[in-house]
């Protein structure tokens, strides 16, 4: 029985770990922290056998767990103000490519978004979730997701225009 659950966990890993890792990275902009966030989420999903037996439930739980862990991490960061191992360097070297600079600007702009706007933007425009599903993951209403995205996109566009 335990072996079956482990097999299910491994299947979930193969199918979704990479996307969750990338999603976590967009939420916490720290490669190793993102890996820890996703690892924690996977370990937590194993706590409930019922969750693992239902693939949709397991996946929704995993995504919510990634979001919650990312929130906790950002809260801790705000307190400690320790920013390490950034997703991108704050000041790109002069010889870096235009694409690299664009990515740097976008990463910085994303990091400056309010938390909920950032989450909504990542879920809608990176993970490509519907408003309703993103709302379920964030535990807010679809209307709220729509509003967060609208404000988030406007703010990002404004921040990007400032930098470019």
């Amino acid at each position: 029985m335990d072996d079956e659950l482990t097999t299910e966990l491994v299947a979930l890993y193969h199918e979704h770990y990479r996307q969750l890792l990338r999603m976590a990275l967009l939420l916490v902009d720290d490669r190793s922290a993102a890996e820890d966030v996703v690892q924690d989420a996977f370990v937590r999903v194993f706590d409930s056998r019922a969750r693992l037996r239902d693939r949709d439930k397991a996946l929704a739980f995993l995504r919510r767990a990634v979001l919650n862990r990312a929130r906790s991490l950002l809260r801790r960061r705000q307190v400690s103000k320790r920013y390490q191992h950034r997703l991108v360097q704050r000041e790109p070297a002069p010889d870096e490519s235009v694409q690299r600079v664009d990515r740097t600007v976008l990463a910085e702009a994303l990091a400056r978004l309010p938390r909920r706007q950032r989450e909504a933007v990542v879920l809608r425009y990176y993970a490509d979730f519907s408003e309703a599903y993103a709302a379920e993951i964030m535990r807010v209403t679809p209307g709220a997701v729509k509003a967060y995205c609208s404000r988030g996109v406007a703010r990002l566009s404004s921040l990007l225009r400032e930098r470019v």
Partner: protein
Amino acid sequence: MTERNAASEESSDERLLRAGLHSLVEGVEPERNALARLLARRRRRTVLRSVFVGSGVAVATTVVLLFALVVPNGPWSTDPVPVGIGPDSYLVRSGGGSLVAVSLESGDVIREFGDPGDLVAVARDRDRVYVAPASGGVVAMGSRRTEEPLEGVPEGEVVTALAAAGERVAVAYEDRVLVVSDGGARRIGFEPGLVVRDVAVESGGRLALVVQDRDGSVGLRTVAPGEDGPRRLGRSVVSCGPARVAWTSTGLAVLRSVSCGEGESVRITTVDPREGTRLAGGVRVEVGAPVGRPLRLSADAADRMLVSAGRNGNWLVEGGTVRSVPCPDSGCSAGTAVM
């Protein structure tokens, strides 16, 4: 409610943002040992949880459990199985001689069973590990380097092949096979002159055997659960003579030499175990050494197969894809690996 975003009219800002976010994390891949780390954490958590559940029953029992968990190699660790190897791993003898469970993805050692000495065969049934020492008999290996003789198997008699599945262990000698389970040991005999070269047991109890006849020809036999006599399978499907067998969910996987001689290529053919007809065939593996007795074929629940050529390497076959499997840091030593 749909998970995916339906195609909608997006503004140019939204389209740019979508492309930008994907570009930002493009190329980000999990760490090489991510799965191994995850499985290790999962195992530790499972152990801890079981300990905490036990603590609700009796404090004294919990103390004993914790003590047993914390102190390695305790002489009281008499129950050798199961050992929690993890499904995404294989068993191999490391360069140092220890039998170890190794992650298929990373090559990291997940569990070490100790050095079993000279051995002729290894088998694995999910989390249970069995070895056939060169001195004879079959031993169940435990997670704390414990060994326990398998009941029902003569201790001094040398085994030629070993397989395990569905809580059954099939032990082959030159002229017979013993199938050991909770129900005791069942003996399957052969006509005089036949020599058993390999054995595979299905989780339902069906056996497949590679046997060599008196005239030197090699063929396949199957034994249905509850029967004591083997049945011959058609020869035509394995023209070069089978070398090794393993059960998969689709049929019987047969490993054979491609050139029928001493070449270095083998092919895995899947045959129907009832009719002997070919179901699929063709995955070719270059084993880098003359095809001979040290080869081993094994399969896991996901129908992935491991072709092992001892020191020459191990290859994982997934569908039509073949890839070399990493050895632990200390290397792979002589003796074949199994999934």
